[in-house]
């Protein structure tokens, strides 16, 4: 089952890369640099998905006290931080030729970087507590606080400043992107989601084995 998920993910990622970097047309004004979007946008999606899973698993842990829920939250937070980092890295690589700078305090950049440090703190807290049960409880509380904070971060940063181009995929009205680009993007979305599921299941399994080895 696990290796099946891994295999499907691999095929999906390969298909996504081919779609994005070979089949999809070259963007007229930005050139090939634009192709990084096929990695950038799905990364953000996975990051938000991961943090949503952290919230749900944290609440589930506090209610049910199932260690599996705690491991799911832990694994998901780690993968979330990884993909938040990927988002920042790919965005930076795209930003240098397009905006002329690696980094700018634009609204969405700032939001993502705040999420990054917030969940980095979450992982730090987990690492600092030896007692497994206490660590799980505290992390769950922090996971809930952090998730409820996301909308506040979003609005505050949005009002603070904005420079990022508006999202081009989900906006109402007729789409401006040709179908092939949308298809390529959707394939990558699916592949990244599978990759997320694969990482989280593997990581949760390692955490379970670690717990068993300790017990």
């Amino acid at each position, binding site marked *: 089952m696990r290796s099946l998920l891994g295999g499907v993910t691999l095929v999906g990622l390969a298909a996504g890369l081919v779609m994005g970097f070979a089949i999809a047309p070259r963007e007229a004004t930005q050139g090939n640099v634009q192709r990084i979007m096929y990695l950038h946008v799905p990364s953000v999606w996975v990051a938000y998905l991961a943090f949503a899973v952290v919230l749900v698993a944290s609440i589930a842990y506090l209610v049910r006290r199932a260690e599996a829920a705690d491991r799911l939250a832990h694994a998901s937070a780690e993968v979330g931080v990884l993909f938040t980092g990927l988002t920042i890295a790919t965005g930076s690589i795209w930003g240098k030729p397009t905006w002329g700078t690696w980094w700018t305090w634009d609204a969405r950049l700032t939001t993502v970087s705040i999420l990054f440090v917030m969940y980095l*703190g979450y992982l730090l807290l987990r690492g600092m*507590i030896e007692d497994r049960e206490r660590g799980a409880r*505290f992390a769950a*509380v922090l996971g809930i606080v*952090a998730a409820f904070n996301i909308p*506040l971060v979003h609005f505050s940063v949005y009002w603070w400043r904005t420079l990022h181009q508006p999202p081009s995929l989900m906006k109402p009205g007729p789409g401006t992107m040709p179908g092939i680009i949308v298809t390529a993007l959707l394939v990558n979305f699916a592949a990244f989601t599978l990759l997320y599921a694969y990482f989280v299941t593997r990581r949760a399994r390692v955490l379970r084995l670690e717990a068993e080895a300790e017990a």
Partner: protein
Amino acid sequence: MVWKDLLVERRSKETLNALFFFGLLLLFVFQFALGPDRERLAGTLPGLLWLGFILSGLLGLGRTFVVERENDCWEGLLLAPGDKSAIYVGKLAGNLLLMLVIETILLVLFGFFFNLDLTHVLPALAVVIALGTVALAAVGTLFAAMTAQVRARELLFPVLLLPVEAPVLLATVKATEAVLLGEPLGSVAHWLKLLAAADVVYIAVGVLTFDFVMEG
């Protein structure tokens, strides 16, 4: 709970003296770091003000539950009858009072050292400060209860609190900037709404999750 509250206040006097001194030192540091240029200071004033608030808040809030451990009152807290969230509300009220006192002192010191006349903007400024302080104290009290039970707590507390408070800091600094320029509160209504929403969310999450923080 009222008793608990009074206890916190009485104890906070020792913290208060130290924090007052810390605030004074901060002002010196700001002055030395930025030089005596009045123009530049005026531009950075809202940020400096909140930097002062948040730094002294970090020190003050972080000690909330540490004193309970030092004084061996922790078990007493855990054994206290009734809802644990009552402890949270009591601690929050105590912290709020402490921070507001410190902030008032800092504000006076800022006015004195930077030669500002704040009297005409004081009501508007008070609204912004009150809203921001509630948000700071609400999360700070919850996190302080957690980090008091963890090693390297004085390191972990700011590391956890600062990212979470990022939206509050953005909102308060922007709102303070506008208020200091003499703009009416209506022009920063969206920031005030955001702060109010943050206050409500933080307190609600704090009350609901505090039970789990105080289990063992």
